[in-house]
């Protein structure tokens, strides 16, 4: 550790750290474009120049290593003028199209102008014309006029994905980010480029022109799309349902967690917001018996009915004819409730699992296991096995299925035939699927992003999360369903 002073405040900083990192630690914000903590200092934007006592010239905060006794000043007239100058340079050729730019509201250039710029423009020349809508792969678009050439995107693709699709072409004021002919960005981490672009130069077709960032509510949770457990921020609008084609979830971005995902998430997880949004079950469906009095049954009716059916079986000494199929996307709390209710209290032995089929791991964050809580299930003593359909059909009288994944493991006809043999089938699922028609009663549940709870990831780390977005009206989290069912049955879960 060394002792330094920033703006007159004495502080300890780790030996070898930079002024910028030490300032960040102390809550002193030095503006930056090209610096990103995931990469080596680049030193090209010149926004982080600071004054160091006894040095004649301003120096970079991002790359200057702290020394014992160093005195740094981040807001002297010289520093403020240099910042203003950098902004004046960057904005000279900038198109100033904030009103139609998706980055507006979270743009470094916009924020810094407001804080450090505020000069009257003296640029009388013709601006450099550059291309504004260049497809660079996936749904990403590059706008060269907005680009400040911080090269964060270039360095991300070289250092993180190792794919190196982007580079800097030409020189001087004509210098631009470019992609070789015939090449496109195809890696599974492309979405991070949009996040790390400090301005609106790389935008995502999925987000483009859809909303303004200041309308978005930002809530942290854990990505449920594989067993990595990446920390994410779900960004949504509050009012749901919305009219017309308006969306509820606009995007998912990474939340930094150095122990799990660093600064990044994969595209598979990022575009999981479609999974929260699309194809949802939002109302209870009763397939075999029509609504009694011309209305849909309420949750209370359904859960009372289910409790009565379970009670009847148990009272008749036929608990063995009750079967449950769980999945590894349930939270630890939900799985624990299942264990208490079904196994411990009701003595159910036929507890199975049906999970999504494993995908391909990408060698970085995305794992082959496409469920978030396989580790949790194992830790709770479950052995997640698929049911033998014929045995199940022979033994079960009442079947409660969590999730639609049985269909991924059995041919639809075979599944339909087997389930026909079971008298009564409840399906609890968040999404519509072919399984809906095979169940007697379908109950809409919440997506993991709409729940609070915890998952145990592939490395055994248990991560708690809060509800990141409200569940659609009519849906209930499985945890709530289980607790209401338990209370109908007189079972204490706590």
């Amino acid at each position, binding site marked *: 550790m060394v002792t330094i002073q920033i703006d007159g405040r004495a502080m300890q900083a780790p030996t070898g750290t930079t002024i910028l990192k030490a300032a960040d630690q102390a809550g002193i914000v030095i503006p930056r474009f090209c610096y990103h903590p995931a990469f080596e*200092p*680049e*030193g*090209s*934007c*010149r*926004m982080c*120049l600071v004054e160091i006592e006894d040095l004649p*010239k*301003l120096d*970079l905060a991002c*790359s200057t290593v702290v020394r014992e006794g160093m005195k740094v000043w981040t807001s002297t007239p010289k520093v403020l003028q*240099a910042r203003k*100058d*950098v902004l*004046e*340079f*960057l904005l*000279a*050729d900038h198109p100033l199209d904030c009103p139609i730019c998706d980055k507006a509201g979270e743009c470094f250039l916009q924020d810094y102008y407001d804080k450090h710029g505020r000069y009257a423009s*003296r*640029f*009388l*020349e*013709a601006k*450099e014309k550059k291309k504004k809508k260049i497809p660079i792969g996936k749904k990403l678009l590059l706008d060269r006029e907005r680009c*400040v*050439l911080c090269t964060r995107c270039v360095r991300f693709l070289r250092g993180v994905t190792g794919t190196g699709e982007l*580079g*800097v072409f*030409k*020189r*001087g*004021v*004509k*210098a631009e980010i470019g992609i070789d002919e015939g090449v496109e960005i195809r890696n599974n981490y492309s979405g991070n480029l949009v996040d790390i672009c400090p301005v609106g130069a790389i935008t995502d077709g999925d987000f483009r022109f859809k909303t303004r960032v200041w309308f978005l509510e930002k809530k942290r949770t854990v990505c449920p799309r594989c067993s990595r457990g990446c920390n994410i921020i779900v960004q949504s609008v509050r009012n749901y349902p919305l009219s017309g084609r308006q969306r509820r979830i606009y995007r998912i971005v990474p939340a930094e967690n150095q122990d799990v995902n660093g600064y990044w998430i994969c595209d598979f997880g990022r575009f999981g917001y479609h999974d929260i949004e699309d194809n949802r079950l939002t109302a209870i469906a009763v397939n075999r018996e029509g609504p009694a009095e011309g209305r849909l049954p309420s949750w209370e009716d359904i859960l009372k009915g289910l409790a009565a059916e379970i009670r009847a079986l148990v009272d008749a000494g036929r608990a063995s004819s009750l079967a449950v199929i769980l999945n590894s996307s349930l939270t630890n709390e939900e799985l624990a409730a299942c264990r208490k209710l079904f196994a411990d209290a009701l003595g159910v032995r036929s507890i199975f699992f049906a999970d999504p089929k494993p995908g391909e791991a990408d060698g970085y964050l995305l794992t082959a296991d496409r469920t978030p809580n396989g580790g949790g299930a194992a830790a709770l003593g479950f052995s997640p096995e698929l049911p033998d359909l014929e045995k199940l059909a022979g033994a079960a009288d009442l079947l409660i299925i969590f999730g639609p994944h049985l269909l991924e493991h059995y041919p639809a006809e075979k599944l339909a035939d087997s389930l026909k043999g079971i008298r009564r089938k409840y399906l609890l699922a968040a999404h519509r699927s072919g399984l809906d028609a095979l169940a007697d009663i379908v109950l809409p549940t919440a997506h993991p992003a709409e729940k609070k709870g915890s998952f145990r990831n592939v490395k055994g780390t248990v991560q708690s999360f809060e509800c990141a977005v409200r569940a659609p009206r009519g849906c209930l989290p499985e945890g709530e369903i289980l607790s209401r069912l338990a209370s109908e049955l007189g079972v204490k879960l706590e």
Partner: protein
Amino acid sequence: MSDVIATLIPAGENSFRLGAYLGRGGYEAARKTILTMKPRDVLEEVKKANLRGRGGAGFPAGSKWAFVPQADERSKYLCVNADEGEPGTFKDRAIMTQDPHLLLEGILLTCYAVGIHTAFIYIRAEYEAIAQRLEAAIEEARQKGFLGPDIFGSGFGLEVLVHRGAGAYICGEETALLESIEGKRGMPRLKPPFPASVGLFGSPTVINNVETIANVPLIFRYGADWFVARGLPRDGGTRIFGVSGAVRKPGLYELPVGTPLRKIIYEWAGGPAEGQSIKAVVPGGLSAPFLTPEEIDVPMDYESLAHAKSMLGSAGVIVIGDRTPIIDVLRIVARFYAHESCGQCTPCRIGTTWISKIADRIGAGAGTSGDLDLIRHLAEGMKGKTLCPMGDAAAFPVLSIVDKFGQELGEPISR
């Protein structure tokens, strides 16, 4: 010993041949030094000679070599900067054309002093004929055992490679030069680390200008004391002054460091061209601040020119005559730096072009009253604030033109 013998640029059609060089005592200094002196003592001798870099910054060569960590296990490299991109500079081409073996002997001595076994000569692609001449000279020297695995039977080995650049001014900046040799886009690196510790391919590297290295054999042929006596005590030897522009006898003049600029222009270069008087003088390559005719009574050494708020730089003297409108000078200067900015850092990328656009607008008769102040403001925004010295190189001449010739510049604006 007369200065004629010791010149860096020998005359004669065949001066470049190995036989001619041996006739001038070539490679004897290297032989004697390598066989009898320890590398450490070689370095000390160069320090004693006060040989300062001839590329522009004037850093003492011995000190630069001493920065290379000796205990380091990695291979070390020497890169000879033969990019010679500074406008008004044409001295290195003459040395390499007329005396390639002098450069090779200098490389040999430098590498021996620092413990380097691979040297690159980074030469601009426009010097193709010279590159070929260098390659032929390297081959000649190898045949004689002056280069190769076991030089003079000392066990010391050295290979020299000629690397052609691809035509960018910025590749004369030492770290951009390294990037270029590594096969990357020629852009300056962020310093520190400095090349002496992390240079070419991540290894300790010495980078010196052609003329600097070409002076090294003279130090060992005639001694450090002789070398210092040829120039100034703190700035030893001669400089090759390349005089161009509105003079009667443009050309290269090898003269002691500290020779007054007026003497170079009037006595050696024959004074201003027929029917002209001097309007301005660039003393050390285009990046040096312009001097007025009243300011040319200055000795041509680093300290004196720094005192005169200019630079000795590459010692390329450009004389601008009174028939040349200063706005044309400003436009050409500004356009050059705008064209050559690598585009990496903000102030240089935008500032150079912005200034160039303003200069063009003034030249086209559409200047406004705030233009000169704005140019000054933009140049100040680059000065000392860029990633590499090019920001200064672009700002210095522009600032000096606006400050010293503002009145003439103001004329097209007020019209």
